[in-house]
């Protein structure tokens, strides 16, 4: 360990770092702009200058840029001498010569890194008396506001957007003090990670446009740690509330999961919490028309006592988007054998297959951070950017691992970002994709294969066989495929950290098995093998670990058991099963109770609807695709009758099913019971401290120390300051009162530190800058392969695709904006939803007499749908990609075999939007359920 002399003190520091990293990790305040822990050093801004002395006799020294200077043993530096202090102050003065100083009207004000650094350098009087240059701003789409005059030219935006996220359409233009960061023309930013510009920009050039709609300063936001509910990765977030509405989502650093970044769906998809589609009070259907009307608590109790009944009469349908606690409560209510996982049957079997691969297979399910360290990647059947966006961002880093390794050989440290990029240029790690069509990672792929699903599986199995000849061979492979399989096998075997990525989104178990097969084969030749299996929803893996029952053969189950009451937890069955089946199901029982936060076609048919909290109004635990259990905490106490699903279930629990005296009082009771009942989930207790956790006798304050207006904000209702709501479920208070130091990592409600008001204050919460949070990153892994004995190979090798005649394979097409249930309720996200169309290979289209834009009729069994056609050379011949998960579109069981043909222009199909406005306008009413058959 090098020892470093800084202003009279000697420190032992980690080798291989630069001076800035080291100083910040030591807790010293050294200002910086262009450096970012995830983006490394480029030496552009010159803000982190310190003085370095040659030896103890040198009293003159010379200025060096801390971010560009590797630490060496015996190094002597000062942060405090007059020369470097003056230089840093002059520097900030220089880069502010054109800054508008519009902090009072700037969205960044109060959490601005530029403000913090300015104060830190002590520059407070402006000498520049000349005219400032000004810029025009651009329209950058629904997510990001652009205000270029504020720019201090640190280049972080393009370094994140282009270099880190491979986004093509944001660039640095012009030169001298006219450098302009924007697009070549107005238009929505194309990258799915554009929202990170908000946090990467040190000042107010790129700000959150959705926040602007209901702007609130950081200091006025009530915040708590949350976990994103919009896909299966479980990125950590911080949600901020004021006046009962969620105002924004920002990143909550978790070194093992999402690091410094979020995807745009996770960041901008929050508005469903505030939407008019919320269920805010209990509703019951009444009268002939079965209109749902608000209902009193007494009436609920009456309904519930009617529900009464003995055993076997309640069927509980859980949900992969509800917390473990809510699901568990329902499981207790209905009994384990009458509790179903609430996933579509095919999805359920795939998630369970994924779970068994993670549990029994030899490969470690990698975290997002580990995925970024992989140096050879093979993706089977997933368009990762659309199904698990932040994993795609990690995989983009994996694609550059070869550059980092090459640089290391040339003695260039990883943090020396510009030098690493110059040395390695366009070189990319071995990166292979087998998919049915184009994917958003194609640009980093070494090779890409577009084949039907069975072809993906066959290639995967061939790779496994090429790695280990004792794995089943694949017959009838073309020579070119054999060669490709050999190439992929060699790349994975030669890598230090090989990673196989697949998931459930293709709907094909053979693909998953093939991915598993590769890891089994690899594990026979080496120790470390990584696998990442993408699951569809935020708690898919959790519900699979909790529930045994599935929606498979639901009709028969209902008939045979004579259920009288159906309790549906946070689930829209119309997204899981064919409409006709759900209709029949809901008719077949006497009573349907739906507990959910947002109106759905299912809730609209319920006899009783109970208003549940969203992620913002409830606490709970989710298990992500890695098998990591993570706790999310309530942000605010909602008005009215919204409460956590588990509380509703507790409240409606008939006497016969539990002793009311010992009924659960708070979340900890539920968790405790859950952990006792379900050993596989016992470790979720460790995901976060329990509700009775206190620091120095204090709760952790959800409101920051500068929270304003707490007496004024309700003054129109009462002149007395109301008592803040109590929170029995978590160690947080709903007020400013509480502990303000650094709490345990799972309880960090915001990043803020004296002198560091921006998100960069995160530095103070990490053990080492860019590393783990103090006390370890949140979350507890529930699944780890024991590695004791290698499981056997899957033996069934699918035959070559047997589509005959006009038959095609119908493949689900998932879209980051459009396919997820709730983010599409955000107005900003709605603007990004692509129009619905089916994607076909031009040759197939020609056969079916279809061109771009013409209407195709797709038929499969009972299903018939009509959509305009988009042609794509990458779409595998014999496959047609069909938009999946779109709100308002009919549920289709995909993949399936079907036929495609030419539709009539005027033939209207009630299942699909009007073709004439399918280009852009159809989604404008996608919040409504009315067009659902």
């Amino acid at each position, binding site marked *: 360990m090098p020892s470093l002399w800084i202003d009279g003190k000697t420190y032992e520091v980690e080798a291989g770092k630069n001076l800035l990293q080291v100083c910040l990790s030591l807790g010293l305040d050294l200002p910086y702009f262009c450096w970012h822990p995830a983006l490394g050093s*480029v*030496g*552009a*801004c*010159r*803000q982190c*200058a310190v003085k370095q002395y040659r030896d103890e006799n040198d009293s003159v020294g*010379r*200025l*060096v840029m801390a971010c*560009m200077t590797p630490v060496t043993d015996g190094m002597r530096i000062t942060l405090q001498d007059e020369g470097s202090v003056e*230089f840093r102050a*002059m*520097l900030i003065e*220089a*880069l502010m*010569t*054109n800054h508008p100083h519009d902090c009072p009207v700037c969205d960044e004000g109060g959490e601005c890194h530029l403000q913090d650094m300015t104060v830190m350098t002590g520059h407070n009087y402006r*000498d*520049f008396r*000349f005219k400032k240059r000004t810029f025009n701003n651009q329209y950058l789409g629904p997510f990001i506001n652009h205000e270029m005059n504020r720019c201090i*030219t640190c*280049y972080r935006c393009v370094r994140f957007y282009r270099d880190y996220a491979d986004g093509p359409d944001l660039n*640095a233009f*012009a*030169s*001298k*003090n*006219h*450098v302009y960061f924007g697009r070549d023309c107005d238009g929505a930013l194309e990258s799915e990670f554009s929202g990170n510009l908000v946090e990467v920009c040190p000042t107010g050039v790129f700000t959150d446009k959705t926040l602007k709609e209901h702007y609130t300063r950081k200091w006025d936001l009530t915040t708590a740690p949350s976990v994103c509910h919009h896909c299966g990765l479980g990125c950590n977030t911080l949600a901020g509330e004021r006046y009962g509405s969620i105002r924004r989502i920002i990143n909550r650093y978790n070194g093992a999961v999402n690091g410094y970044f979020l995807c745009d769906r996770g960041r901008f998809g929050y508005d469903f919490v505030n939407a008019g589609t919320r269920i805010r009070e209990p509703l019951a259907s009444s009268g002939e028309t079965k209109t749902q009307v608000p209902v009193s608590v007494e009436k609920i109790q009456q309904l519930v006592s009617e529900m009464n009944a003995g055993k076997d009469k309640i069927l509980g349908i859980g949900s992969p988007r509800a917390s473990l606690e809510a699901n568990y409560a329902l499981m207790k209510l209905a009994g384990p054998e009458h509790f179903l996982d609430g996933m579509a049957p095919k999805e359920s079997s795939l998630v369970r297959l994924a779970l068994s691969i993670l549990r029994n297979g030899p490969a470690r399910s990698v975290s997002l951070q580990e995925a970024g360290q992989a140096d050879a990647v093979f993706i089977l059947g997933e368009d990762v950017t659309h199904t698990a966006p932040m994993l795609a961002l990690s995989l983009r880093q994996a694609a550059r691992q070869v550059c980092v390794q090459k640089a290391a050989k*040339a003695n*260039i440290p990883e943090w*020396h970002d*510009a*030098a690493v990029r*110059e*040395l*390695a*240029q366009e*070189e990319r790690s071995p990166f292979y994709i087998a998919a049915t069509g184009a994917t958003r990672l194609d640009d980093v792929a070494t090779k890409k294969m577009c084949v039907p699903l069975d072809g993906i599986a066959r290639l995967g199995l061939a790779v496994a066989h090429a790695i280990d000849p004792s794995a089943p061979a694949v017959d009838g492979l073309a020579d070119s495929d054999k060669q490709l399989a050999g190439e992929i096998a060699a790349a994975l075997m030669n890598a230090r950290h090989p990673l196989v990525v697949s998931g459930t989104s293709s709907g094909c178990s053979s693909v998953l098995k093939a991915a598993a097969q590769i890891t089994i084969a690899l594990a026979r030749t080496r120790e470390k093998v990584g696998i990442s299996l993408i699951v569809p929803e935020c708690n898919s893996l959790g519900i699979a670990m909790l529930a045994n029952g599935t929606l498979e053969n639901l009709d028969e189950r209902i008939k045979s058991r004579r259920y009288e009451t159906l309790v549906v937890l946070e689930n829209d069955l119309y997204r899981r099963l064919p409409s006709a089946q759900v209709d029949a199901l809901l008719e077949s029982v006497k009573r349907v109770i739906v507990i959910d936060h947002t109106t759905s076609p299912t809730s609209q048919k319920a006899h009783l609807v109970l208003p549940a909290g969203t992620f913002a109004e409830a606490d709970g635990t989710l298990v992500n695709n890695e098998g990591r259990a993570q706790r999310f905490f309530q942000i605010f106490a909602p008005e009215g009758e919204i409460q956590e699903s588990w509380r509703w279930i507790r409240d409606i629990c008939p006497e016969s099913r539990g002793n009311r005296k010992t009924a659960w009082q708070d979340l900890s009771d539920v968790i405790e019971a859950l952990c006792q009942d379900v050993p596989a989930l016992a470790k979720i207790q460790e995901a976060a401290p329990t509700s009775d956790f206190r620091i120095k006798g204090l709760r952790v304050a959800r409101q920051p120390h500068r929270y304003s207006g707490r007496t004024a904000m309700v003054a129109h209702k009462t002149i007395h300051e109301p008592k803040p709501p109590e929170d029995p479920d978590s160690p947080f208070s709903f007020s400013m009162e509480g502990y303000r130091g650094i709490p345990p990592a799972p309880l960090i409600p915001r990043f803020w530190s004296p002198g560091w008001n921006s998100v960069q204050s995160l530095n103070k919460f990490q053990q080492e800058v860019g590393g783990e949070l103090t006390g370890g990153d949140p979350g507890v892994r529930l699944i780890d392969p024991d590695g004791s004995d290698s499981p056997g190979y899957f033996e069934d090798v699918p035959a070559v695709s047997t589509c005959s005649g006009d038959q095609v394979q119908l493949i689900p097409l998932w879209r980051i904006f459009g396919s997820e249930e709730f983010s599409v309720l955000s107005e900003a996200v709605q603007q990004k939803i692509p129009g619905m169309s089916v994607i076909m290979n031009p040759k197939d289209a020609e056969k079916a007499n279809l061109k771009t834009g013409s209407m195709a009729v797709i038929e499969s069994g009972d299903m018939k749908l009509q959509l305009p056609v988009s042609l794509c050379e990458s779409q595998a011949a014999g496959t047609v990609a069909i938009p999946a998960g779109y709100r308002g579109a009919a549920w289709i069981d995909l993949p399936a075999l079907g036929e495609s043909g030419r539709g009539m222009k005027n033939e209207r199909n009630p299942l699909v939007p009007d073709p004439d406005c399918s280009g852009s306008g159809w989604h404008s009413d996608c919040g409504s359920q009315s067009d659902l058959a």
Partner: protein
Amino acid sequence: MIDRPLTKNIDLSREPFSIKEYEAAGGYQGVHKALKEFTDPKSIVDLVKNAGLKGRGGAGFSTGLKWSFVPMGPDAPRPRYLVCNGDEMEPGTFKDRLLLEGDPHSLIEGMICTAYAIQAEVAYIFLRWGYTLAEQRLSKAIAEAYQAGYLGKSILGTGFNLDLHLHISAGRYICGEETALLNSLEGKRANPRTKPPFPQVSGLFGKPTIVQNVETLCNVHHILVHGVDWYKGLSRCEDGGTKLYGVSGKVKKPGVWELPMGVTVREILEDHAGGMRDGLKLKGFLPGGASTDFLVEEHLDLKMDYATIGKAGSRMGTGTMIILDDQTCPVGMVLNLTRFFAQESCGWCTPCRDGLPWSVKLLEAIEKGEGKPEDLDRLAAQCRFMGPGNTFCALAPGAAEPIQSSLKYFKEDFERHLAEKRCPWRS
């Protein structure tokens, strides 16, 4: 023996030598000698090092030493690149133009010898956008050299391959900075790169690369043919060879001449440039181009070599002097230069991007008579702020040199602007 190796073939009144004429005048002997006699390329590196050839682009770094940093041997990265920096864009500097237009084959020959010495297989000439005549002549010469087998596959049957490409710059001063040049050549923004790693290790497309100035390269084959002793004998100082010295400004005969390294400033100014125009007196001069510190009359008898001029507080730079006379406003001159440098900043690092425009605004205010007394201190502080080590590359420190030295030598003139609230040189 020849005493003006660089310009011996140059006669601006006619087209430059064709390859036949060039060969007849002893041309391409360097290539023959290098490829056939120096079977170990490293011996060329040593020879050039011993000859004392220093880079003529301004920094004056030992050329042979630079080459010796290129990783060689069977495991070394390939391909290696040689890049000729022909982006001559500094105000007052026009020496490479003479060579490019006057004797293109000499540059090509120097490049072949250099490429062989570092075993580069691809070479580029990065040419200033405005040098269209040079472009025509170089294109023709390169085609001739390919035709004659001096470029391409297995040159002179030795198995040594070299492709030479002529790249026309899009036209930015910063492209003269060797790493910005490499970025530009790669199609990227012409921002300089950080060093280390140096281009010799990670240069063009991440591969080992040597970047040399036109004039430097034109020396190489002469050293190979005539030897170290001859080369050193050309010089009057410890740096070997001859140098192209230029003079611009209000002198009788502005121009550029090949003279022994180490002639005095006075010789260049009086014997070759003919002295000041009638009625004008020398007020000061920038010895090595626009980005060097002013020197004044007392320095006229200094030798124009890297060490002597450095000791006097300036730099020999490109060896092309700009003369300031007593009828020209020094503030106006410095303002003019600073405007150029501010305009040409790539915008990467703060002191240059924001410090130079601020300096321009201060100089403008002073020149217009709107300056404030504290502006001189501010200007001096700006120069320190943009000083060496504080910036990413040498552009801003170079730009600060005329400003800081004018504040030293012509402070009274600045003060007159402040006191009279106008430019005293304007009627």
